[in-house]
């Protein structure tokens, strides 16, 4: 008996979660029309009407449906109650949970070709909703409705990446020649963690660095596996975006006998008092001889 009561209770609770919001939406199906919204919210209405969402030429657009109420829900009760922020109307912002806010956008964009993988997006997992980055009514210029330009928009949350892109060796991100969205799709890709626009890190890097793609007759083993083993892609204190400085970076792996394992110290600098091995330290260090470090057609030691 206890077990049956528990089962019944469980089903009631579960179905309540699913059905209650749906019933509320159904009960309030009383649309006032966009013209009624315009009476009080003229600036918002004007922005909407001039935006892509306001174009009747686009099939399925809010302009061809319930206008403002396509996103904000039926507004008759809102008007009856004298208006007010969030009074009998859906508002976008922190008070409304991320899934509810997203559901309004995904009602039309759920199968959009630009972001079929929003469900896999790390932003979604972190409860970042569409309106955290996009604003239909107060966007900066552009057809993406972004609240700010890249990369500042992204740096608002990704402060550690901002710190890295400010370092002396960096991709031209702050110079505006590369955007975060050049490599990442913030709306999600099949790459669950970093949302990169490729099936692997190397495939992404080769889009701009096609010369590294090879395949080379002599491969440097870590290179075809992952560029990030040696490069800090958002920015580094070390030239060429290296994760650590050569020769110590190379010595992290090359500990074999002979010169790779030897210590090259301050005394091996241009004015240092060491008497040999200095050309393995000063200038570009290991790369003074092993120039083809990404791969070679002629030399297994990458010196040709």
């Amino acid at each position: 008996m206890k077990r049956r009561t528990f089962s019944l209770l469980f089903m009631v609770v579960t179905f309540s979660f699913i059905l209650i919001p749906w019933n509320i939406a159904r009960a309030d199906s009383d649309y006032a029309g966009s013209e009624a919204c315009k009476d009080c919210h003229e600036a918002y209405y004007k922005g909407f009407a001039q935006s892509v969402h306001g174009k009747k030429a686009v099939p399925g657009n809010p302009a061809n449906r319930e206008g403002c109420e396509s996103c904000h829900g039926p507004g008759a009760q809102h008007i009856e109650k004298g208006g007010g922020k969030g009074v009998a109307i859906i508002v976008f912002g922190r008070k409304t949970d991320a899934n509810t806010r997203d559901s309004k956008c995904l009602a039309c964009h759920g199968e959009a070709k630009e972001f079929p993988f929003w469900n896999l997006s790390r932003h979604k997992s972190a409860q970042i909703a569409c309106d955290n980055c996009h604003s239909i009514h107060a966007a900066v210029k552009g057809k993406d409705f972004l609240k700010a330009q890249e990369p500042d928009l992204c740096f608002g949350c990704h402060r550690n990446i901002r710190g890295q892109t400010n370092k002396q060796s960096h991709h031209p991100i702050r110079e505006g020649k590369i955007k975060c969205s050049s490599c990442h799709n913030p709306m999600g890709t099949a790459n669950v963690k970093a949302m990169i626009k490729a099936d692997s890190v190397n495939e992404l890097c080769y889009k701009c660095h096609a010369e590294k793609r090879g395949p080379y007759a002599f491969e440097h083993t870590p290179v075809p596996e992952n560029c990030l083993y040696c490069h800090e892609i958002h920015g580094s204190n070390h030239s060429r975006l290296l994760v650590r400085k050569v020769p110590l970076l190379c010595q992290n792996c090359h500990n074999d006998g002979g010169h790779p394992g030897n210590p090259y110290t301050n005394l091996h600098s241009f004015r240092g008092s060491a008497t040999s091995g200095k050309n393995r330290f000063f200038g570009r260090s290991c790369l003074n001889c092993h120039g083809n470090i990404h791969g070679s057609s002629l030399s297994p030691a990458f010196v040709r």
Partner: protein
Amino acid sequence: MVSLLPLFSAFPEDRVVEGDLSLKPIWASVDGKEGGEAKFTEYRDLREAGGFYGRARLNLDTEKYFLDFKAGDFGYDTQYYKIGGGLWGIFKADLFYNEIPHNITFDARSTFSGAGHDTLVGTPNTNVAGWETFDYSVERRQYGGNLKIDVIRPFFAGLSFQREERDGIKPIGAAETSPGGIAFELPEPIHYVTNNLKVEAGYAKKPLFLSLGYIRSDFNNSDTTLNLPANFAAPNALSLPPDNNYQKGSFKGAVRLPFNSRFSTNIGFSTGESDTSAVSLITSGYSGKVNTQNYDLALTSNPVRFLDAKAYYKYYKRDNKSDDPLGVANIFLDYKISTLGGDLGLRLPLNFYLSGGYKYITTERHKEGETDPVEILPFNTDNIYFGNIKWSGLEFLDVKVGYENFDRNAKYRTFESEVNPAKRYYYAAQNKDTYKATVDIFPLENLNFGLEYRYKQIDYSDTTFGLRKDKRHEIGTSADYIIGKIAKVYGYGDFGWIKFNQLQSSGAGLPWEADQKENSWGYGIGTEVYIIPSKLTLIFQHDYLKSNGNVDYTLAGGLFGAGGLPAFPTANNENIDMARWDDYTLYTFKIKAVYNFTKCLSASIGYAFERFEYKDAQLGDYNFVPAGPPNSNAAFLTGAYKDQSYKANLVFGSLSFKY
């Protein structure tokens, strides 16, 4: 853009036309040597005399059509042009042109002549003043177009083409003899052309999304060898990147399922081939070919409001199918990576959101043709656990804390590789802990403050020789405050502390240890003061960035007096440390006044100062031909990355017209 003006009248009354035109004269005074001038203009085109920089933008929007045009930096190495347009709901198309410079060092020098070409000639000499000068600089010119067709809804199709031409010179190195000998830094000619074509077509209508894609990329290098003078041992040529082509076919799909669930997949197959026939010295008949396969499968579900769930699987395989008939290039890397994971998110009472997950990754590497048992690479299994909790219980506060543990196990496949004390960090067993905490406060609608802290520690537990520890702290903060119609104040601060520890075995088998430390910090503050609202605005911005690195060496006593190090006590563990390890300071300051004559016409005038100071143990006291016994210390260098410090004063103005 003037030629576009007649189009305006072709559109109906409801058109919206807006845009701007601006001209920005800049005068610059740069105090820096070869490397400094290049560093100042690393990704920009701004030389001593400055210039006039123009920008134009036009947006035309009607109920049925749109046209966007933007362009800027006309005639400079950073110029860009993009024109796009379309019929709403029917198609979109654009054409673009973009240039990206990358300046490394100006007026570098080579003992050989022929910089920028595929043959270097001459005999090494020490008269640096008589050497040929050239710039280490690479320019990318990208142009292409995109077309997206929407009229066939729910079907769609897209086509894009991009061609990139890359020209310039970058540094490369070669040993005079192999192995060892005098090191020669050389100018590598860059004359690359890459053509990329992408086609995609699909179907998108609830509950289904399907897409087929094809990518082809052809890379061509005009110089696949750099012919070296006769003093270089055979082969006296340096191989440069061979021509290659890459093709990929892909399928993406997603379908909605009951219980607010969705199944997604992404499948891709690629083939990359390189053509070394132009590398004249290759006689092995090597023919490069690599195939990859990728499968992503994911199921996400949000069956009840308080639960988000995700399960996913990824399989990625690289198969090196290169042909090497004479067995010259006999080590090819194949690998397979499988990832299986699941995430859960729970919306809890009191505005808590709890999320966590687990990921299991296996990596199998095979070096085909590898006969050295020490070099047989291990298989890895990674177990990753993570959890986050976010609290948004107050209207003015968000707090988030998270933790991730990454545990890697390395399974060695030969006795020799297992007992080898030297382990390479990219496959070595490791345990990584990452902690992060974020606080975002917005007590007022016009005041925001954010603070983020991250701590990461990696222990390479099985490594005796190699990288053993990686530890880092990162703090980032930002704030902005809008004081009514009076001013806006904003700022940020970043701090990073990194420490690496590695233990090495010297050529003579004696141990030595190095601790690398990097301290980086930076801040920026800025304000916009609306002196006469809507008329006169004063803008001030200051940024500061500093990095201080060092290496603390500890050598076994027997190493002093060996490997070129002076004998103890001349050299000891106190005087071998590196105090300057990519140390730099970047200081910038900008002040600008903007005056709006009308709603359409505005002008600005300003002054900026930039100072970059760079010091490094490897580049300090630079010498193009360092003295030393031949075949041991000697090198012929070109000055790459030398003297990167600079100071620059800039005076600028602008005249802008908005319409």
